[in-house]
Every structure is written in structure tokens, then in C-alpha cells.
């Protein structure tokens, strides 16, 4: 597949999307000393971060390589919207306050593709707003995936036990379910 190093404009757009949702400086910490690189795949573009010492190899000989995956997969860009990869979820989750802590039962249901209901929520930052993406953590603070809040966080105490709080966007059980 064709790869290209990410130009500053495209990288700026990605940085903005990540930082707005998960906190200023998150993208910079995530990238570290690595360089961003894109690989086009169907209608989307996969974004990776690679160590600087790989750059010269790719510049000189990369054209002949059918690279399918490289380094750290940051996410994908589709129709201008950036989606985080499962590869980096736990890393980003440690850098942000945008998370929802769920009970053992809620965690299990979430990894089977279910969304989060009120009775599963143990902790949620009250400043988070409806539509915002949050990391879903279990009681050990292990990242299980990403969900989108379906309600403003400060309103959840008004909800019934079985009402939806956050919709499952991606979870760590996805690959297992897909591959069997």
C-alpha cells in the first residue's frame, strides 16, 4: 500500500481533533520523538507513528514495499474525522480526564459490544458533555474502549438505572468477536 509522510497541515488537523477531545498536549505526548506517516486504505487513511531511524529506509526504498502496518497505529482518518486506534487507547487514557469508570458487570457487557447504562457507571467527570468521546475504564483503570456520551455528565443522576449513558464506539473485544 502507498504511504506518505504526513504534511504539517494534515497533522495539525489531527492534533486539533485529539487535543480538543482529550486535552491539550495529548497528541504531542503520544507522538513522542516518532514521525507521523499515512497509509491509504480503501476510503480511509491509516495514521502511524514511526521511530526516526526508520525514516531513511522508507525514503530510500519504501516505494517498493507493500507496507500494511508500521510502528504505532494512531488511528484512521475518514471523511475528515479522526478515529483513535485500539493500539494506543490505553496510552491516551492515562493522559486524559475524559473517561468513564464502570462496574465489573458493565465492563464485561462493554467488551461484548454493549453500551453503558446508568447502573454501571462508578465515576464520570461532571464537566463532560453529551456527544463527547470518553475512554471506558474498568475498576482497575484498564482501558476497555471508547464510548460517546449520550447525555451531559452532570445530568446522569437524574437517569433511571437502565438508561443509556454512553454508546459503545469501539471496544477491546471487537477483534476477538470479528476473528472468532
Amino acid at each position: 500500500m502507498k504511504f506518505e509522510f504526513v504534511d504539517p497541515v494534515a497533522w495539525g488537523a489531527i492534533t486539533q481533533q485529539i487535543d480538543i477531545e482529550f486535552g491539550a498536549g495529548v497528541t504531542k505526548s503520544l507522538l513522542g520523538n516518532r514521525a507521523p506517516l499515512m497509509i491509504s486504505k480503501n476510503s480511509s487513511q491509516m495514521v502511524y507513528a514511526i521511530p526516526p531511524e526508520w525514516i531513511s529506509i522508507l525514503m530510500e526504498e519504501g516505494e517498493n514495499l507493500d507496507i500494511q502496518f508500521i510502528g504505532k497505529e494512531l488511528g484512521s482518518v475518514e471523511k475528515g474525522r479522526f478515529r483513535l486506534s485500539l493500539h494506543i487507547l490505553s496510552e491516551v487514557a492515562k493522559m486524559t480526564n475524559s473517561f468513564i469508570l464502570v462496574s465489573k458487570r458493565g465492563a464485561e457487557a462493554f467488551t461484548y459490544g454493549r453500551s453503558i447504562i446508568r447502573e454501571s457507571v462508578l465515576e464520570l467527570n461532571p464537566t463532560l458533555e453529551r456527544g463527547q468521546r470518553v475512554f471506558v475504564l474498568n475498576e482497575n483503570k484498564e482501558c476497555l474502549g471508547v464510548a460517546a456520551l449520550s447525555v451531559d455528565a452532570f445530568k446522569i443522576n437524574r437517569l433511571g438505572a437502565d438508561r443509556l449513558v454512553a454508546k459503545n464506539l469501539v471496544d477491546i473485544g471487537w477483534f476477538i468477536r470479528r476473528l472468532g
Partner: protein
Amino acid sequence: MTKKELRQRAKELAKEHGYLQYMIERYLSLWGEEDTLRFIKACEQPIRTAIRVNTLKMSVDLLIPRLQEKGVTLETVPWLNDGFYADFNESSPGALLEHMLGFYYVQGVPSMTAVSVLNPEPGDTVLDLAAAPGGKTTHIAQMMENEGLVIALEQDRQRMTSLRSNIIRCGATNTMVIRGDARKLDDLPFQPNKILLDAPCSGEGLIPLDPTRKTSKTMADVRFCATREDEMLEAAVNILAMGGTMVYSTCSIAPEENEYVLDDILKRHPEMSVVEISAEFGSSGYSEPYGIRLNESLKNARRFLPHLHKTEGFFICKMRKKERSAQ
């Protein structure tokens, strides 16, 4: 036993136990009747499930009690740092949260052993040929502590999905997955100092896991695999850096796919030599299978056999390429 008697006995045993005759003939020639019967019996027994703790994400000390709390019984594999026999009792090994989190990988003991023998270290450049589904790729990355470069080569588009998902699940960040044919490595712009070639094979060691293998492959299939393995080995030897190390492994017990192929490589490449494996496991490779004398050093290779080691059948050989001689 004369050749005629051997054939007759092989025919009887093959019929009795549901194997193709050519397979039993070869086992009788290699091991004699007593061990052949032990092999056949062992192939009817289940293989113990094993896991590798993925130390990129979790320490052994933290994971073991956590799994034990969930009813998993664990026993150390003596020659592996992070390998454990695991009895999941009521649970399915792939369904636990710890598996989804990438804290362990369900993997056969021989497969873990092959990577352990290669001994990848931080900073190495390692080429993993025919890499999907990624058990060995992620193990290599783990031993390298995500430092250096793992080039994972895979040709099959379908299997690429499982390779990618396992890299992601296990948190390996030093891999470059390339689609390509392991027999054509000339264009790769790397000179790996370590290569793992776990070659696609006839799977003759997998009878305990897949009983259909007793009848699914003919001798022609074994020969076809041997030819492909020879081509892959040739390509791997050529790209390996001088002074580099290579591990060749298969899940086949057939000498035709193992010692014979390596003997040919050693004849064609005097710069390659078989080296001793320091860890204690398995039994020696064959230097005179079916009475045909091969390179004596092939005794340094190791075999896992179901009737001797209670694992699937497997072959591991470690080789080194000579350093460039000073002019």
C-alpha cells in the same frame, strides 16, 4: 524387519488407526514398532493449553494471581521465562478480559520455544517470515522490549487481519508488516541480524490437534512443502547479515521437511552452520533418518514429539552465518 514385512505391518496399523499407509511406513522406519505405537496413542491425547505472558503489557507476578483467581491453573514451562501450561477449567482461554487486554497470548509451547531459541534482543533487526497470525511476531517484539525493528512478512491477505489485530492487542510498536512472498526477499532493503523462518509445512506434527491430518496429506504434498521450504530457506540465508542467527522451525515431524532440507542448505552454503541450543527441551534432530547419512551437526537441532514430550510435533534448528572474514 524386511521391507516387505514393514510394508505389511504399516498397512495393518494404518488401517487399524485410520492413517495413510505411507505415514506409518515412515514412522516404523524411523522409530520401530514400539515407539510408533506410542506415537499413535499419544496423538489421541489432548495437548495441554499454554500461554505466554505478554510482558509488554503485564508482569508475570501480577498476571498469575489474577488468572488463578479466575480458576485458571498454571504451571511453569521450565525452559521458558514467560511460558506457562494453563488449564482454563470452565473458561475459554480467549474469552477472559485479560486476553482481550493483551496480557497473555494463547500459544503452543514449541512455538514459544522457537522464538526463545532465536533470542531476539532490544535493538536487533529481526525478520519474521510467514508471520501471521502473529504469535511469534509479538513474542519477538516482547523479547526486544519494543526496541529495534521486527519486519513481519506475510503473503496471505486474509491472514493479515489476524496479524494486525494481534500486534495491536499485544501492544507491539516496533513492527513493520509487509505483504510479500518469503521466497523473494532480494528487494527487501534490510539486512536482518536475526531471522525466524517458521515455515508453512505439511503439519504432520499437528495430528493431536487435527486428526484429519492422518489422511489429508499425501507424500506428494510433503515433497511440495519441502521444495517450498527449501526456497524460503535459500532466500532467508541470502538476506541474513554476516554473523547473523537464524531459526528454522516447522510443525512437521517429517525429516523430509526438516533435516533433509537443512542438509541441502548446508551443502550449498558453507557459510552456514548449525549451532547448539543451550536450553534443555525436546530430543535431538536426526543425522541419519531412514538410514540416509546427513550432516552430523543436525543432531544439534531439536524435535518435539507427542509421545516423548506431550506436545504437538515440532522441529527447531538454530543456525549461524559466518562473520565476514578479514581481508
